[in-house]
């Protein structure tokens, strides 16, 4: 075949050849440089998901196969029974179907899987609602009413303030007080901590979603809310914290052995002016609260091989009918959880494929 496509090509002069080669090099270099900026290589100051997860690993050590935060926990399973109250506000199937199966996880907030249960007054509760239509709603809640900080940057500074000093292996005792002093937005959280005591049970706690979301109705109306679950059976007040390091899981297993545990899912409707993008601020004053239904937990499993182990409780996995607010912590949690998840998922063996017989 003749080379018909080549017109006569006068040879390039040396300067012209060099200029053209340099031009090609420049195009490639600009493209590669733009990419290196976007992926963070040329932007080292940017807070990245891995920066947050690395900070958690620095503070707590690396515990292969476990979550980089909220490392100590227990799996639970049950279902959610919807009431009619949320239906007008959200088209999510979880509120229109009578029952939706739920997998959950109770945990301590720390990234240390060996933390004694009495070490912190905070307990957390994550849930995955699996709707019949295949969509899911995942949420991670905590027993405090507000988050200490409102931005991922401040959260990172807080982690750094609690980081162990390489010289002593222990956090600098002045670190956290200095952080709190420099971050007045932590005041509502600190006020709560002062009154909070480590509970003797996961079952007696109220858990708050803290971040704001929108319920979206079938006709597209959006209502900002914060949600939470309130236990239906309160224990006798004055329960003392048991001795020992690991009483919470034992207590939960015992309670479930004698029957299901119930919480009411509340949706607190935002008033005009309530902050939707700042989880460090409480919503003050009177609010309309919807009783969206009842969460019923029936069984638990150890987290090492329980059904909750491989769930990334990403707060932005939402069904149609629930939307994220522009709270910057939501995107940061989603991004950081994904980074933690790929690390720990690479450190475990596959979970049993058939549902294991669960403890009562």
């Amino acid at each position: 075949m003749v080379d018909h496509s080549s017109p006569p090509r006068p040879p390039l002069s040396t300067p012209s050849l060099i200029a053209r080669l340099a031009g090609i090099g420049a195009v490639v270099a600009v493209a590669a440089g733009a990419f290196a900026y976007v992926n963070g290589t040329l932007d080292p100051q940017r807070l990245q998901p891995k920066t947050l997860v690395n900070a958690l690993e620095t503070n707590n050590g690396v515990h292969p196969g476990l979550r980089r935060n909220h490392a100590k926990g227990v799996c639970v399973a049950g279902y959610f029974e919807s009431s009619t109250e949320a239906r007008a506000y959200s088209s999510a199937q979880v509120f229109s179907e009578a029952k939706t199966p739920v997998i959950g996880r109770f945990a301590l907030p720390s990234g240390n899987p060996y933390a004694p249960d009495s070490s912190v007054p905070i307990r957390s509760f994550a849930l995955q609602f699996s709707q019949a239509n295949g969509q899911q709603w995942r949420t991670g809640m905590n027993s405090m009413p507000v988050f200490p900080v409102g931005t991922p940057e401040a959260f990172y500074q807080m982690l750094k303030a609690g980081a162990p000093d390489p010289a002593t292996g222990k956090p600098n005792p002045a670190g956290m007080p200095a952080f709190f002093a420099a971050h007045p937005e932590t005041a509502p959280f600190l006020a709560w901590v002062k009154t909070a005591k480590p509970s003797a049970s996961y079952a007696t706690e109220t858990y708050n979603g803290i971040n704001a979301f929108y319920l979206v109705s079938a006709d597209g109306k959006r209502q900002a809310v914060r949600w939470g679950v309130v236990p239906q059976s309160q224990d006798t007040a004055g329960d003392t914290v048991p001795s020992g390091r690991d009483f919470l899981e034992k207590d939960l297993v015992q309670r479930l052995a004698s029957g299901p545990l119930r919480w009411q899912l509340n949706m607190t409707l935002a008033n005009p002016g309530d902050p939707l993008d700042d989880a460090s601020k409480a919503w003050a004053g009177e609010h309309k609260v919807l009783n969206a239904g009842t969460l019923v937990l029936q069984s638990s499993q150890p987290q090492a091989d329980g059904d909750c182990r491989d769930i990334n409780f990403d707060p932005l996995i939402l069904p149609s009918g629930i939307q994220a607010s522009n709270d910057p912590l939501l995107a940061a949690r989603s991004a950081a959880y994904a980074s933690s998840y790929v690390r720990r998922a690479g450190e475990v063996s596959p979970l049993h494929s058939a549902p294991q017989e669960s403890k009562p």
Partner: protein
Amino acid sequence: MNAQPRFFALLARLLHWLMALMIIAMLFIGAGMVASVSERHEWLIHLHKPLGIAILALVIVRLSVRFSTRQPPLPADLPLWQVLAARASHVVLYALMLVLPLLGWAMISAAGDPVMLSSSVQLPALVEANAPLFALLRKAHGYLAYLLFLTVLLHLAAALFHGLIRRDGVLQSMTGTKG
């Protein structure tokens, strides 16, 4: 025997340039979203998933166009190693265009997450939930995306080399301009 075409078929050229834009956008979206904790992370993911599925659909159309139309030949005087490099890089480009969206889809499935293209459009899971498989697929998705970016850069440099240095009509066979 018919004369060899000078240009790629019009549909092939349209698909090439459309997908070039989509793939470059996709590579930047992917690299940016995994390196950000800001709201950008979220809206980039919402772009990344439907765009990936669109690329998967288009590359299937494109491969069938490629196999059903005639390609302009490479210049007869092109050194053999450059011919081989061109062929190999095209195979890598097509393979990655096909594999990367499938890996993304499979890794979301392996994580046990619903594969949502929008707030209500859901794809079926490609594989069962399996955490170590997720980790493997997720890493493969990332590394192969970098390989795709490097191959795109090589492809771009080679195209400009043909257009500016060799001036042999290869670049024009895809731009459709007279060289």
